[in-house]
């Protein structure tokens, strides 16, 4: 008999079912475990950096930023702790009462709060950076039924106690605590703190709980400028008045200490944060540049102070088709001091031609034109000095009286300071010192001599010549009772689409005082006045006003003996 092997049919008994259910139940945790292991091992970096970024973001908003102060420790920019007021709709007990209270306290129309309420999901900010008085009012009711659902989130706000004063130099920092312009940007690393790798947690009510290590390192550095807030105020006030009086588009006033290169005041008007004309405004200077060409020629020995220059009947044909005219005087010959006193373009042009393109170029570069300063102000212009081998005779002559070169106020004031201090170009300083946490102080304004530009004898000769410009020449309005003032006026036509135009010009005055022992070099530039005016009439009085205040402020003794 054939025996058939018969396999038993699969019986899905209770035991098997239990086993299967067990496997299925185990599968889910197993998948989770495997996924976790994968994340921990292979995706560790990605998740760690994600978490770090999230922490950093709110830390960046909350953390303190260092102060920016003037040379005497007056706070020009500081971070103050403010709060933002938010509403957690879910926890609000009485909507109408809460909205009434907020509208009244924060002085916001009820309709605006209602609008936010209706638009938001659960949470919305009613007001950011609320005033301390309002913070006090809200925090007092926070634990009462009226305050339920209200939240006060701490954050820091950048405050400028002196308003717009020096804001062009200070610059701005954004709500993420990042310096965007000016000193805020230049010293962002010192003013803020690199905490991206540090850890911190935020507690339920908003406050940050730092790692022990981070809390110890929390202090930030304070940056002290060389600017004296009082000097800055005087410069700003005088500049604003002048800009408005002559209807200028904008203006700049700078004060430098010639012996050290320290900038005591750097005013721009209108004021825009981080936009300082001192560093960013490049212009053709016109006659204030004659000082440079004359000093260069004197230093090179090409001319001497006693030389007379033929005015060619006050019509000098520089090249075919190009004639220079002096309309401001009727002399056939001018001495070197007279060239500056009367601001003769023919005289300065002839001196430049006598000096030669290569030599003039060397001196111009040596005075620091065409090169950025070491201040490193963001957006600083280096100006423009074309290479001398491209100059024609007309170019050379015109550079002698300040056309065909672009320079910045910081470069020009530095050059005048070199003339004033005996012939040495000093490195300009805008920041005096940095005070780190723990008391360490880094001095940044030690006088640094860049190079000798002219000999001390040339400097002395130029000081006398520039003094005569103020005493008997175009700079009479810069005279100060009791003090010898040296300086030079400038009125330059601006290059437009159709060439140089009479309607658009830059007027300026640059000088130093007291001439016998210079303490302040001051430059005033007014761009594009709507009224037709000159450096001697519009800018020289501003120089005088600023200089008078500074001399009185610093108690500088008069250098004239019989001035009564």
């Amino acid at each position: 008999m054939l025996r058939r092997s018969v396999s038993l049919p699969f019986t899905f008994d209770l035991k098997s079912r239990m086993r299967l259910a067990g496997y299925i139940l185990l599968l889910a945790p197993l998948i989770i475990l495997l996924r976790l292991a994968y994340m921990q091992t292979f995706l560790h970096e990605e998740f760690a950096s994600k978490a770090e970024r999230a922490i950093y973001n709110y830390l960046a908003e909350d953390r303190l930023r260092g102060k920016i102060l003037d040379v005497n420790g007056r706070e020009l920019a500081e971070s103050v702790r403010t709060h933002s007021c938010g509403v957690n709709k879910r926890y609000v007990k009485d909507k109408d009462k809460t909205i009434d209270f907020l509208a009244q306290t924060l002085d916001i129309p009820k309709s605006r709060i209602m609008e936010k309420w209706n638009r938001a999901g659960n949470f919305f900010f009613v007001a950011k950076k609320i005033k301390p008085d309002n913070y006090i009012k809200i925090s007092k009711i926070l634990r009462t039924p009226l305050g339920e659902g209200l939240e006060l989130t701490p954050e820091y706000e950048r405050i400028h106690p002196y308003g717009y004063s020096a804001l062009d130099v200070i610059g701005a920092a954004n709500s993420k605590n990042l310096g965007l312009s000016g000193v805020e940007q230049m010293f962002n690393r010192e003013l803020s703190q690199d905490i991206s790798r540090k850890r911190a947690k935020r507690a339920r009510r908003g406050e940050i709980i730092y790692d022990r290590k981070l809390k110890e390192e929390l202090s930030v550095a304070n940056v002290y400028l060389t600017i004296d807030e009082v000097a800055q105020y005087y410069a700003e006030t005088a500049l604003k008045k002048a800009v408005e009086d002559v209807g200028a588009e904008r203006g700049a006033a700078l004060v430098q200490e010639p012996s050290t290169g320290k900038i005591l005041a750097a005013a721009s008007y209108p004021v825009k944060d981080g936009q300082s004309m001192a560093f960013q405004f490049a212009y053709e200077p016109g006659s204030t540049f004659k000082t440079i060409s004359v000093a260069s020629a004197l230093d090179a020995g090409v001319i001497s102070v006693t030389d007379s220059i033929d005015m060619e009947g006050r019509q000098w044909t520089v090249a075919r088709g190009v004639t220079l005219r002096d309309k401001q005087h009727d002399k056939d010959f001018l001495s070197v001091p007279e060239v500056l006193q009367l601001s003769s373009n023919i005289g300065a042009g002839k001196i430049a031609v006598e000096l030669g393109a290569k030599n003039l170029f060397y001196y111009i570069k040596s005075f620091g034109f065409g090169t950025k300063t070491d201040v490193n102000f963001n957006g600083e212009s280096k100006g423009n000095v074309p290479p001398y081998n491209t100059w024609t005779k007309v170019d050379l002559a015109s550079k002698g009286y300040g056309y065909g070169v672009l320079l910045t106020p910081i470069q020009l004031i530095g050059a005048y300071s070199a003339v004033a201090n005996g012939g040495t170009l000093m490195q300009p300083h805008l920041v005096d010192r940095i005070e780190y946490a723990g008391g360490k102080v880094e001095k940044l304004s030690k006088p640094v001599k860049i190079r000798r530009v002219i000999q001390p004898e040339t400097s002395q000769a130029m000081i006398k010549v520039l003094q005569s410009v103020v005493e008997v020449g175009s700079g009479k309005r810069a005279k100060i009772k009791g003090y010898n003032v040296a300086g030079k006026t400038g009125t330059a036509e601006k290059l437009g689409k159709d060439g140089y135009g009479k309607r658009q010009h830059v007027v300026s005055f640059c000088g130093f005082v007291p001439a016998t022992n210079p303490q302040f070099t001051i430059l005033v530039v007014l761009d594009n006045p709507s009224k037709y005016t000159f450096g001697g009439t519009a800018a020289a009085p501003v120089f005088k006003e600023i200089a008078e205040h500074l001399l009185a402020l610093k108690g500088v003794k008069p250098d004239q003996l019989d001035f009564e």
Partner: protein
Amino acid sequence: MRVLGVVILLALFSFGIVVMRIEINRSGRAISQAQNEVEIKEARNQYLKLEILRLSSPENISRLAQEKLGLVPVKPHEVVVLDQPK
């Protein structure tokens, strides 16, 4: 008897825990209130400090000196500078 002892002990223990919780809550509230007061004082202090800075700005002092006291800026040659005693 032993059971009763255990029950009393447990009751005392529970009572202790309750008292402790109440005390913790009370202290927590006091700390929180004190913290709030510190924050208010700090905010007020900061506000006043800023007010001082604003009021002591050269612009404000010049304006007040001219408007209230009729003072005018001194000319530099009118300033008498005394030599420092040697």
